[in-house]
């Protein structure tokens, strides 16, 4: 059903997000709601694996075979009668991923960082091209000589003499303190 499409869409982006959005359609599990088209029937109760909403509308496995059914019958009795494996099997009937499985780390960060750097690079090229072809000529106020004369004038008129520029200039010896 959705195996190929979601696989292809999810290969670069987070598979988790795609699967969460499309429900359990891409998974190889049995479920009773058969989607004939490539979309999820949102009018039916859905299953999801979400950290922030822990209890989905329906259990993971809807279509139970005979062993599952007998286990569910046993579940109706005292739970102390269940073995550890049975309890785990019941959990796996109800849920697809455990919280640690949901939180498992992925390699997505490499894609993110790589994409970031690619766009930085493209932007750098654009900026360089812009500096060469778009910018008007630089005003004279940026020349070295002009800047030196500007600084001398600022010192002459004693700008910020207490804590700022002129306070750092030694007027007697004509150098920076």
């Amino acid at each position, binding site marked *: 059903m959705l195996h190929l499409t979601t696989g292809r869409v999810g290969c670069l982006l987070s598979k988790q997000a795609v699967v969460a959005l499309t429900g359990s359609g891409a998974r190889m599990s049995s479920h009773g709601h058969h989607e004939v088209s490539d979309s999820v029937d949102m009018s039916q109760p859905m299953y999801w694996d979400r950290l922030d909403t822990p209890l989905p509308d329906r259990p993971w496995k809807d279509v139970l075979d005979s062993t599952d059914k007998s286990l569910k019958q046993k579940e109706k009795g005292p739970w102390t009668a269940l073995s550890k494996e049975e309890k785990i099997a019941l959990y796996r009937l109800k849920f697809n991923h455990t919280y640690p499985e949901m939180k498992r780390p992925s390699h997505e960060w490499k894609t993110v960082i790589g994409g970031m750097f690619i766009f930085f690079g493209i932007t750098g090229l654009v900026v360089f091209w812009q500096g060469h072809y778009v910018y008007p000529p630089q005003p004279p106020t940026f020349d070295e000589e002009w800047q030196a004369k500007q600084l001398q004038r600022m010192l*002459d008129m*004693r700008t910020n*003499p*207490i804590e700022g520029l002129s306070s750092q200039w030694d007027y007697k010896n004509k150098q920076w303190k």
Partner: protein
Amino acid sequence: MSLAKPAMRGLLGKRLRFHLPIAFALSLVAAAAFKYGVTEPRKQAYADFYKQYDTTKEFNNMRDAGVFESVRTTGE
């Protein structure tokens, strides 16, 4: 296995009782640090500067440097 029932109420109050005094104290520390690290030295710097500030001398220095438009440099 029976676990103890976790705290169900008063969680915000507990957090505030812990964090508010600390926040208050840290704010006071920040204000005091700024006062004694920045404003008091600045006030002192201004006081010291103006203690030996000779207005006429500075004026003449500036005038000789040629930054004024209303007063010509001495000697013209």
